[in-house]
């Protein structure tokens, strides 16, 4: 029997929700890692029982956790399950170690970025925002971190190495932190071209590599941000999220700080498709699993008021790749709702009809099993939801 498995990261732990393909009755397990901030969990497409998780704390720093049994048990990579310690092949705790490349060859010129006051500030690792497992190798996983950089592990999360071409391609000193920090929060892997990858940083913008991460270029033409000194600058845009459909990876959709945009040429040129949205501020954006021109956003009132307009929680769907949007309200609260939906907190499954999921800062995870036509909370009193991912398991 097929299974939907929803991985939820929250401010105080992780939760795993499972249901069969009908997606009507859900079991909830958790909290896993109770009391810790769980920024993101994501499973491998190659081995769905392999799940990576980012566990973090202002007190104790960054921990990477891994499950090889679909989230039933967890361990820090390099620390085998059931072996807390061991002579000889003692695990060394390297899985928690994220050290920026400071080698003379690649790292030395990369040591500062722009601080809030305009001065230069050294890069300081804070946490892993996003984990993106490889589409072809279960042991390869990418990590987007704050302060913004891209790391990779090729041994299942035991050891991490920066891909310094990202941070060092030349514009790094112009990057500055957004209100939530300078995080590399989006990593998209091109399923048709394994040398191509897209990432996004708040508040630097979007970037692309065509050589598997060695070199990068900004892809922000067409973005217009009135809140920065040069609204059309190459760097400095507060990109909140990017999404693509695997069948058409040159087409990207973006939710920016303000504005919803699309590109049809892998980011070389963007155009706004906010159309009739009631507000084009927001964080999440995602694409229907089977309809590449069907996209979803959750409009948020403004950058100063991070909650839905008029207290009505509405998902907006466009079946035309943007510009023409319809409000989806059935099953969602339509009064007195003042939650936010954070950038990593929306996902789609691969069932037919497509399931759409999102989590709120009020602790609800809403799901639709009919392309977004109707919604229901599948759990409703969790800590603030940071991230939502879903696995479709045959």
């Amino acid at each position, binding site marked *: 029997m097929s299974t939907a498995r929803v991985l939820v990261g929250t401010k105080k732990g992780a939760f795993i929700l499972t249901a069969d393909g009908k997606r009507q009755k859900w079991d909830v397990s958790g909290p896993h890692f109770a*009391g*810790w901030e769980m920024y993101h969990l994501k499973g491998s497409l190659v081995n769905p029982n392999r799940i990576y998780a980012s566990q973090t*704390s*202002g*007190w*104790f*720093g*960054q*921990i990477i956790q891994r499950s090889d049994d679909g989230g039933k048990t967890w361990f*820090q990579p*390099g*620390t085998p399950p059931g072996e*807390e*310690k061991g002579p000889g092949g*003692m*695990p*060394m*705790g*390297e899985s*928690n*170690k994220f*050290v920026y490349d400071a080698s003379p060859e690649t790292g030395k010129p990369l040591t500062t970025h722009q601080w809030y006051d305009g001065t230069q500030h050294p890069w300081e690792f804070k946490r892993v925002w996003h984990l993106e497992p490889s589409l072809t190798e279960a042991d390869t996983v990418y990590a987007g971190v704050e302060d913004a950089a891209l790391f990779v592990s090729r041994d299942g999360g035991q050891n991490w190495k920066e891909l310094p071409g990202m941070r060092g391609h030349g514009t790094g000193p112009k990057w500055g932190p957004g209100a939530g920090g300078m995080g590399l929060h989006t990593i998209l892997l091109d399923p048709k071209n394994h040398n191509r990858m897209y990432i996004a940083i708040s508040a630097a913008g979007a970037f692309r590599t065509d050589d598997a991460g060695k070199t990068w270029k900004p892809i922000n033409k067409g973005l217009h941000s009135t809140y920065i000194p040069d609204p059309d600058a190459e760097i400095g845009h507060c990109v909140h999220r990017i999404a693509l459909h695997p069948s058409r990876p040159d087409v990207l959709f973006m939710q920016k700080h303000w504005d919803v945009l699309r590109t049809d040429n892998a980011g070389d040129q963007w155009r706004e498709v906010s159309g009739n949205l009631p507000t084009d501020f927001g964080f999440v954006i995602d694409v229907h699993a089977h309809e590449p021109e069907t996209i979803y956003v959750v409009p948020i009132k403004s950058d100063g008021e991070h909650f839905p307009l008029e207290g009505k929680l509405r998902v907006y769907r466009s079946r035309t790749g943007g510009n023409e949007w319809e409000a989806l309200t059935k099953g969602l609260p339509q009064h007195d709702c003042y939650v936010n939906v954070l950038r990593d907190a929306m996902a789609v499954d691969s069932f037919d009809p497509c399931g759409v999921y999102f989590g709120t800062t009020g602790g609800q995870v809403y799901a639709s099993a009919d392309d977004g036509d109707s919604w229901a909370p599948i759990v409703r009193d969790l800590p603030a939801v940071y991230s939502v991912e879903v696995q479709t398991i045959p």
Partner: protein
Amino acid sequence: MIVVVLPAHLRTLARVQGDVELDVAAPVTVRSVLDALEARYPMLRGTIRDHVTLQRRPFLRFFACEEDLSLEPPDTPLPEVIVSGKEPFFIIGAIAGG
């Protein structure tokens, strides 16, 4: 035998219950206790002090005999009652927030 009291979250990470007992060769200092702790429980590396610089994480402090040793040089010898295990060495998470 040195007795170390860990914050609850670090006990969970190390998969231990209660206090931790460690054999630490002389001279017993904050640095040597943390070295022994991380050797025995390597999953704690990076959670108490930085992986590379070995600086104490800002929201953690070290106490012994009701004294805050957090700002002492890490190679300062610890009191005899700590060395003998009569008193524990505390690693404490700051009460921060509101």
